[in-house]
C-alpha cells in the first residue's frame, strides 16, 4: 500500500466515545473506493485502534446524494493478469476485515447508492441504517462489469441474508431500495433521510451499551441466522444446481463472471471466512482478466459518454409538449415513454380505434408498473392523462416537437410535413422516426429544413434504451441539442449521427441481414443461419429478425441500400419471390417461420418457403463458423465504412448503437471494440480472405486498412 493519501476521510470523535468516519472523496460528486481511498481507510482504522477510547463507530458519507458508488473501475480495468486481480482483491479484503474486526460496534449510515465496494464496506460493519428515500439503492452489480464482488461481498452477504437472497443479488447485480433491503435483512433499520445521521449515532451507542432497539435487533438477527443453519446440505446443492442451470440459460455460456460468483458464494457455505475470501480473491482475479470484463467495462465507459452527449453546444429548448403522428406500434411506444417521462403528448391518427390501441398499449405498460408497485394507480392515471389522442391537428400549435411515426413512404411524409408546418409554430421541431429514409430527402419537403431531424427509435420503444439522432447539414444546432436532450430523457442512450441511407444502425443491420440472405440463397437452411448467430451472441438471428420487422419492410430498406450503395449491397436473384408470395412475416403469420394458433414458442421453419429459394427443400451444409464470420464481418466492415464516411462521428457511438439498438453481443464490447480486440491487421486479413471468396461486399474499409497499417486502434 504505497498509494498516496487520498485525503478522503474525516474522523471526529465526541465525548461519548462515538467516532464518526466521514467519507468525502475530493473533487467528485460520488464517493468511489480507489486503491488510494482503501489505503487511507486502512490507515484511519489503525489510527482509531491506536487512539483508544472509542466505544462505537459510524461510517457515513459527506456527499448529499450517495454513500459509496463502488470501487474505482480504473483499478479493475488495469488488471491484465489474474494474479494482479487477486492481489487487488486481497488488499481490499484486508481493509474490510480490519473494519469488521474492530473491538467495538460499527454502523453504516446509508443514503443514496451503496453499491459494489460500498456495500461490501457496509457489510463489514456491525449494523446498517438506510434511508427510505427512493435514491437509496443497495447492490453488488459487479457481474455487470464482468467481475465478481472482490472485497468480501460473496462471503459476507450470504452469511447475513442467506444463500438464496445473496445469489439473487450477486448473480443479477440487482439493486434494492431501503425497504426491500430491510425485508431481506440486508439493512437493520430504514429511516427518513433527515434523521439518518442522528439515528445511526444513537444505534451505535445502543450497540455499545448493549441495550435499546439496535441491540435488540442485533440479538434477533443472531437467532434468525441460527435458524438458517438448518438449511440442509441437500437444499444447498439443489439451489446451486438450479442457479447454475439458470445462468447457463441466461448467459448462453458467454459470460463467465456469474458462474465464478456462484462458486464464490457457494464456498461461503462450506468454508471459513478466511478460506472463502481466498477463493473470492482468486475468482475475482480470473474474472477481471477476461476479455468479457474488458468489453463490459468498455461499454460502461462508452455509455457514460453517450449519457453526456449534447448533440451540439446550442442551448436546448425544454420540451414540455410533444406531438406524435401515427398511433401504430412505434407511435404508441414513443407516446408511452414520453408520458412516462413527464412530457404531454398529443397523438394523431386518422383512426379512432387505432388511438384506442395506443392508449391500451400505454395502459398495459403502466398497469404493469402498478402491479410491480413501481407506480401508484394515481401515478399511472397521471401518465395516461398526458397522452391525448386526436384525429385532427388541434393541439399541435403548442407542441415543441412533432415526432412522425407513419409508414415509410416519402410522399406521405412530405404531406404530413406540410400539414405540420401549417398547424405548428415556426419553432416546432419535426422529427422523423424513419428507420431508413434519408432525413435530407424528407427535409426537401420542408419550408424550414433547419427544424427537420431524424429520431430513430427501436422497438419496443419502452424497452430499447437507444435513440439514434440523425442530423442533416441544414439541421439547426438548437434542434440537434433539443432532440438529443429529449432522446436521452426518453431512452437513456442517444447517439448523434450524420444523415445517409440507413444512417448507422439500419445500414449495418442491412449489411448483416443482406449477408444472411445471400447465405440462405446459397443453400443454407434458415434455422441453421439463425442458430449460428444466436450462438455468436445475437439475441435473434437475422432471418427471425426479418419475420419480426416485416419482410416487406426489409425489402424497402434493401431497395434503399441497393440504390445508395450499388455494387456493394446486392439482393440475390429471386429474392422478391418471397415477398411476392404474400409473406410479410409475423404480422400476417406468414414468413420464414410458422406462426399462428397452436404454435409453441420454439420456432419452426415453414418448409414451403424453401420452394421459393434455390436448392428448394434440399438445403446445403454450411459450417457454423462460416455463417458467423460472413455475417459478423459484413457488420464490422459496414460499421467501419460509416465511420470512414463520417456518418458516425465517433467509434464509441458505433458501439453504443450496435449493442443497445441492434443487440450486438455486449460481451464483445461493440463492433469497434471487438475489432480492436481482434487486432485491426487480423480484421483486415480476414476481410480480404472473405473478399476473395464472396466479393466486393467484404472489401475492407480504407479506414481499416490505413489504421491497421499505422498500427492504430479505435480506442
Amino acid at each position, binding site marked *: 500500500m504505497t498509494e498516496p493519501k487520498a485525503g478522503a476521510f474525516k474522523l471526529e470523535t465526541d465525548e461519548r466515545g462515538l467516532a464518526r468516519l466521514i467519507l468525502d472523496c475530493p473533487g467528485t460528486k460520488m464517493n468511489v473506493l480507489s486503491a488510494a481511498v482503501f489505503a487511507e481507510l486502512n490507515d484511519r482504522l489503525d489510527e482509531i485502534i491506536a487512539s483508544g477510547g472509542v466505544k462505537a463507530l459510524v461510517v457515513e458519507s459527506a456527499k448529499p446524494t450517495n454513500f459509496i458508488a463502488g470501487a474505482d473501475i480504473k483499478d479493475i480495468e488495469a488488471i491484465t493478469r489474474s494474479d494482479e486481480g487477486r492481489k487487488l482483491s486481497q488488499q481490499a479484503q484486508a481493509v474490510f476485515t480490519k473494519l469488521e474486526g474492530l473491538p467495538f460496534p460499527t454502523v453504516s449510515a446509508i443514503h443514496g447508492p451503496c453499491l459494489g465496494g460500498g456495500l461490501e464496506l457496509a457489510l463489514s460493519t456491525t449494523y446498517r441504517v438506510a434511508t427510505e428515500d427512493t435514491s437509496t439503492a443497495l447492490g453488488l452489480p459487479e457481474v455487470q462489469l464482468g467481475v465478481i464482488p472482490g472485497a468480501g461481498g460473496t462471503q459476507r452477504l450470504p452469511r447475513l441474508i442467506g444463500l438464496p437472497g445473496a445469489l439473487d443479488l450477486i448473480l443479477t447485480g440487482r439493486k434494492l431500495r431501503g425497504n426491500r433491503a430491510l425485508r431481506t435483512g440486508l439493512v437493520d433499520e430504514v429511516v427518513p433521510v433527515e434523521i439518518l445521521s442522528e439515528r445511526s449515532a444513537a444505534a451505535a451507542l445502543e450497540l455499545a451499551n448493549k441495550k435499546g432497539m439496535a441491540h435488540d435487533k442485533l440479538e434477533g438477527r443472531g437467532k434468525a441466522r441460527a435458524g438458517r443453519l438448518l438449511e440442509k446440505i441437500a437444499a444447498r446443492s439443489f439451489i446451486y444446481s438450479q442457479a447454475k442451470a439458470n445462468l447457463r440459460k441466461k448467459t448462453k455460456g458467454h459470460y463467465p463472471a456469474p458462474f465464478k460468483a456462484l462458486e464464490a458464494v457457494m464456498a461461503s457455505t462450506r468454508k471459513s471466512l478466511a478460506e472463502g475470501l481466498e477463493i473470492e480473491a482468486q475468482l475475482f482475479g480470473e474474472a477481471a482478466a477476461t476479455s468479457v470484463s474488458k468489453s463490459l467495462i468498455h461499454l460502461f465507459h462508452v455509455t457514460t459518454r453517450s449519457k453526456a452527449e449534447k448533440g451540439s453546444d446550442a442551448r436546448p429548448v425544454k420540451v414540455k409538449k410533444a406531438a406524435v403522428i401515427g398511433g401504430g406500434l412505434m407511435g404508441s411506444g414513443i407516446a408511452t415513454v414520453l408520458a412516462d417521462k413527464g412530457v404531454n403528448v398529443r397523438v394523431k391518427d386518422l383512426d379512432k380505434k387505432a*388511438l*384506442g390501441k395506443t392508449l391500451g398499449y400505454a*395502459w398495459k405498460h403502466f398497469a404493469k408498473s402498478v402491479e410491480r408497485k413501481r407506480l401508484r394507480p394515481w401515478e399511472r392515471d397521471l401518465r395516461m392523462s398526458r397522452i*391525448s389522442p386526436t384525429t385532427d391537428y388541434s393541439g399541435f400549435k403548442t407542441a415543441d416537437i412533432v415526432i412522425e411515426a407513419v409508414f415509410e413512404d416519402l410522399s406521405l411524409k412530405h404531406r404530413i410535413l406540410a400539414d405540420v408546418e401549417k398547424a405548428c409554430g415556426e419553432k416546432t421541431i419535426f422529427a422523423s422516426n424513419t428507420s431508413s429514409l434519408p432525413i435530407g430527402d424528407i427535409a426537401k419537403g420542408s419550408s424550414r429544413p433547419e427544424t427537420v431531424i431524424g429520431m430513430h427509435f427501436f422497438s419496443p420503444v419502452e424497452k430499447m434504451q437507444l435513440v439514434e439522432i440523425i442530423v442533416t447539414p441544414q439541421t439547426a444546432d438548437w434542434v440537434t441539442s433539443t432532440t438529443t436532450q429529449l432522446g436521452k430523457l426518453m431512452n437513456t442512450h442517444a447517439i448523434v449521427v450524420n444523415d445517409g441511407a440507413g444512417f448507422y444502425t439500419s445500414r449495418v443491420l442491412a449489411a448483416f441481414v443482406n449477408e444472411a440472405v445471400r447465405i440462405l440463397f446459397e443453400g443454407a437452411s434458415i434455422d441453421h443461419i439463425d442458430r449460428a448467430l444466436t450462438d455468436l451472441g445475437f439475441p435473434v438471428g437475422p432471418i427471425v429478425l426479418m419475420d419480426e420487422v416485416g419482410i416487406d419492410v426489409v425489402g424497402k430498406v434493401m431497395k434503399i441500400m441497393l440504390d445508395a450503395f450499388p455494387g456493394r449491397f446486392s439482393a440475390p436473384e429471386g429474392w422478391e419471390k418471397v415477398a411476392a408470395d404474400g409473406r410479410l412475416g409475423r404480422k400476417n403469420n406468414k414468413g420464414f417461420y410458422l406462426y399462428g394458433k397452436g404454435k409453441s414458442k420454439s420456432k419452426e421453419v415453414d418448409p414451403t418457403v424453401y420452394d421459393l429459394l434455390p436448392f428448394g427443400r434440399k438445403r446445403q451444409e454450411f459450417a457454423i463458423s462460416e455463417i458467423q464470420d460472413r455475417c459478423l464481418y459484413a457488420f464490422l466492415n459496414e460499421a467501419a465504412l460509416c465511420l470512414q464516411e463520417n456518418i458516425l462521428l465517433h467509434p464509441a457511438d458505433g458501439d453504443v448503437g450496435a449493442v443497445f439498438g441492434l443487440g450486438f453481443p455486449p460481451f464483445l464490447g461493440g463492433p469497434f471494440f471487438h475489432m480492436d480486440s481482434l487486432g485491426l491487421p487480423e480484421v483486415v486479413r480476414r476481410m480480404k480472405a472473405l473478399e476473395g471468396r464472396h466479393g466486393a461486399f467484404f472489401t475492407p474499409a480504407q479506414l481499416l486498412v490505413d489504421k491497421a497499417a499505422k498500427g492504430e486502434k479505435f480506442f
Partner: protein
Amino acid sequence: MNGMATKKAAPPAKEKAVIVDGVRTPFVRAYTDFHHLTAVDLAKAAVKELLERTELDPEKIDEVIMGCVLPSVNQPNVAREVVLGLGLPDRIPGFTLARACASSAQALITAAEGIMAGEYHVVIVGGTESMSNVPVPHSKNVVDSLMALSKARSLGAKVKALSGLKMKELVPQPPAIAESATGKTMGQHAEMMARKNRISRQAQDELALASHQRAAAAFESGKTAQEICTVWPQPRFEPVDKDNFVRGDTTLEKLGSLKPSFDKRYGTLTAGNSSGLTDGAAALLVMSESKAKELGLKPLCTVAGWATQSLSPQEQLLLGPAYAVPLALERAGATLDQMDLVDLHEAFAAQVLSVVQALESPEFAQKELGRDEPVGKIDREKLNVNGGSIALGHPFGATGARMVLGMAKELERRSARYACLSLCAAGGIGTAVVLERNGASK
C-alpha cells in the same frame, strides 16, 4: 347576489366575463360506456381536450371551478383532482361546488363574479357527474358498529361490537334522489306539479319527442360534434363519441305506450318524458374580456347576467327558473322577447312546461314576482333548439355547463345576440344565466 333585496343591477364592472370555448364528453346512460370512469376521470377528459383545442398555456389559468353533486368520498374536491391529475400548475387551487343540478351554472357565475372582482382572468369552469359511481353509504348503525369493532381488543368485545347489527342493515343504501324536507322524490314532486299546473301527458310526451328529434338532428348536422370530445374509457379504450341516450326514431305512440314511473296508477310522468341517470362532464374556458383580447382570442359570448332564486320545496319544487329568469334578464338589461334562444333544463317535461306557463302567466307575475306584466311568452321554436336533458341525459353536475356550451355555440352559429338558460335544482332552487354574443350588442 341572492334574494329579492338585491334586485338592482350590479354596479358597472370594469371587467366582463366571456366564454372562449368549451368541450363536453358524450353523455351516456349510467352503467354503460363510462361505467369505469369516475366523475374526476370524466372531468379530466373534458378539461384536457378543452386545453388542447384552445391551445391555452396552462400557466395562464388562475382557477378551476367544478360543479359536482355526488363526488366520490375519496375525491371530494373534483377541481383540485383535475388540476393535479392533469399535471396542471400546482399553484392553481381548484374548488368544487354543489348547488344540486345548477352546480356548474353556479360555477360559471362564481367565475364571472371573480372576474368582475378582479380576482381571476382565466378560469376553467365545468361540471361532472358519474351516476355509475355514486357513493353508496352504509347506515349509521353499521358504521358505528364497524368503528367499535376496529377499537375492540378482545374477541368478546368484537362480538359485542357486531351484536347490535341486523343482517338487513348490512346492505348499503343507495341514495334516493329525494327531498329531505318533503320526503318525496323528484319524480313525485314533478308529478305533483303536473297535476297542480294541469300539464297533460300528451303535452309532456310532445316536449320529450321534440327533445329527442332536435338532439338527433343536431347530431346529424354535425353541431354536436363541435361540442363533444371523444373519450376512450379504460380498460378497453374503445372510442365513445356519441350521446347514447338520444332516440331520434322515437314517436308519440312509443312515448305514449310507456307506463307511468312515479304514480303508477294516475300519473303522467314516464321514463320517456323524464331525464335519466347519466354519466358525463363539460368544461368551459372563461376569461376576462381584456385577457381574451390580450391573447388574441375571439370569445363566443359574454356572460351578461345571472340570478339564482328559490321557493318553498313543498308544492312547486322545480319552479325555481320562473323566478330566476326574470331577474337574470333584468340584470342583463334585456327582456324575454329579446332572447333569440331559450334553454330550459329538462329534468321532467312537466317541469319545463310548468315554468313556461308561469312565465306567461299574469297572475304568477303579480303574485310571485310583484310585476304588472307577465315575464313573457317563449316561442317554442326558440326553446331547447338542440334538445335537452330528456334526450341527452342529465349528469347532475355537468348539465349547466353543457347548456352554456350549447347556447354559446348556437349563438355563434346563428349570429344571434341573446340566449337565456335556466335550471331547476333540488330544494326549490332556480338558476338562470343570460349570454350575449360578442360583437352583437348595440
